């Protein structure tokens, strides 16, 4: 279509004349990708602990040495005064107190119910939960080991031990970074695509050139397509750029088919840019549009499973995610990159997004009024 081509020429010229474009496309995403991937970790190391040992027995010292040997914990204080430890907790110098009470060893030896107290700073519940889990693990392993040693139950044939062997597939080093990086990549591709498109459209409205366009025989779909394609290409380029950065800097695995990934990204971009376009057809000013786009973007992003797994969300939230294109992309990019999933594995997401794209673009085109 010659008209479409003419329009595209114009759009590209305008985009690259905008001096901000180059830094926005390259520098900003790069910085974000690097900085944020390193920031986004939920793993915990070196949790500061205060030990209150009121028993001074061999058992208690052995227990403490287990914690000393663990990379998860850093013992900042050992004392026999509980209040001292609690003060450290309230002043945020330690995050957890291990309280071994008087008669710890004796009680164990006598087969009585032996308590061990943990006091965890639970303001951050997730951290507290993890802290608790790590402590429990260490204490349990101490428990079994010491039990077996001191009572020779192992040999007595009365105690059965269970060996649980964890095996981590696709990511044996448990590198959280690649998970996060792929998430951040999604965000950047989406942000750049959607924001640029929508802003462009409203900017024309504000400049008044839209009227001039409306008077011409340009068809609505041609106009919308011309607004969409340049940014789609830029966003795809962004994806390629990001993948390269990921590979070089973070060792991002690319197990699956890149072709499939790009194909899916095209469908995804059509959807997301379509949403941006639709939003701009219902905004009158750039300001309005930016806030609406920001609102939707933020909500979609948080719900998409970028930082926290989408599968962990309550059912009603997962249902809403049916309308969240970012959730689809988030899931698929990780599946393709990290696990090598193929088309059959993602066909459901592919079809769903395809339908979504068609719907939203039709809506945007219909809603765009050449005549008011």
């Amino acid at each position, binding site marked *: 279509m*010659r*008209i479409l*081509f*003419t*329009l595209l*020429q*114009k759009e590209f*010229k*305008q985009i690259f*004349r*905008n001096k901000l474009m180059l830094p926005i496309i390259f520098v900003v995403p790069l910085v974000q990708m690097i900085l944020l991937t390193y920031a986004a970790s939920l793993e915990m190391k070196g949790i500061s602990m205060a030990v209150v040992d009121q028993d001074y027995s061999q058992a208690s010292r052995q227990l403490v040495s287990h914690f000393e040997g663990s990379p998860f914990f850093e013992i900042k204080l050992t004392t026999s005064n509980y209040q001292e430890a609690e003060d450290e907790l309230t002043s945020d110098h330690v995050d957890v107190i291990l309280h071994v009470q008087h008669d710890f060893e004796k009680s164990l030896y006598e087969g009585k119910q032996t308590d061990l107290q943990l006091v965890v700073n639970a303001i951050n519940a997730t951290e507290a939960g993890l802290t608790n889990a790590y402590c429990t693990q260490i204490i349990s392993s101490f428990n079994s080991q010491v039990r077996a040693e001191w009572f020779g139950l192992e040999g007595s044939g009365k105690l059965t031990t269970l060996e649980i062997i964890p095996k981590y597939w696709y990511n044996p080093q448990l590198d959280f970074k690649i998970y996060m990086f792929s998430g951040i990549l999604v965000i950047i591709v989406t942000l750049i695509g959607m924001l640029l498109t929508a802003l462009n459209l409203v900017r024309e409205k504000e*400049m*008044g*050139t839209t*009227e*001039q366009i*409306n*008077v*011409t*025989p*340009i*068809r609505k779909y041609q106009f919308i397509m011309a607004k969409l394609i340049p940014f789609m290409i830029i966003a795809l380029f962004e994806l390629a750029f990001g993948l390269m950065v990921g590979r070089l800097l973070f060792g991002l695995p690319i197990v699956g088919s890149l072709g499939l990934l790009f194909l899916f990204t095209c469908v995804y971009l059509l959807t997301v840019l379509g949403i941006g376009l639709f939003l701009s057809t219902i905004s009158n000013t750039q300001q309005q549009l930016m806030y609406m786009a920001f609102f939707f973007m933020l909500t979609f992003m948080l719900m998409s499973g970028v930082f926290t797994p989408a599968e962990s969300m309550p059912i009603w939230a997962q249902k809403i995610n049916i309308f969240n294109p970012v959730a689809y992309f988030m899931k698929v990019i990780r599946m393709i990159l990290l696990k090598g999933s193929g088309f059959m594995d993602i066909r459901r997401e592919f079809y769903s997004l395809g339908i979504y794209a068609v719907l939203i673009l039709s809506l945007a085109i219909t809603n765009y009024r*050449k*005549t*008011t």
Partner: protein
Amino acid sequence: MDEREHIIEVKDMVKKFGSFTANDHLTFHVEKGEIFGFLGANGAGKTTAMRILCGLSYPTSGEIHVAGHDVYRERERIKRKIGYMSQKFSLYEDLTVSENIHLYAGIYGLRRKQIAAREEQLLERLGLSHIRNRLIREIPLGWKQKLAFSVAIFHQPAVVFLDEPTGGVDPITRRQFWEMIHDATEEGITVFVTTHYMDEAEYCDRVSIMVDGRIDALDNPAALKQQYESKNMNEVFLKLART
């Protein structure tokens, strides 16, 4: 005159915005090749009416034909045969003179060779050849105006609509602009122009004067001056506005 020669035919056009009537049963026609001035004070309803004729706005009711096509059903066909120049001169500020020409020419379906040839002619005539690669935002207002008009008629439409095209330019430039309009009609293009500068009415073949959404006068300038016993169109307008 034979109705078929009327390039624009309007009968009882009404445009309401809620309870406010912007255009109240307008009836008029425009003949092929004439310069038709659509005059009136600000807010009288000129731009509204023009937007309807261009296909930018839906009329509330009335029979309207432009360039032989019905405005309700054949809007897209009309658009191919008309040109438009808005108050803001609607050229893309961040494209060059040449790029703007190519853009709009391409939109109206001209081939590259055609465009190139006409572009040369146009730039020569306007004396703008030396700035063909300058961005629009860098050229003075007077040149922008002339360029905008030329771009609007580049594809040789049947009618060109001009919405207050001389706002903000000095009198000499205005004069030159009207000369360009005249030249356009010599090539067979009908010019429909709205303005609130009453003196420009003298340049038109016929004018209509709108007051509060209605056409209160419609004739050639000489006849109107006689009718209202005025020396110039300004007086005609003042007399009309007072009644």
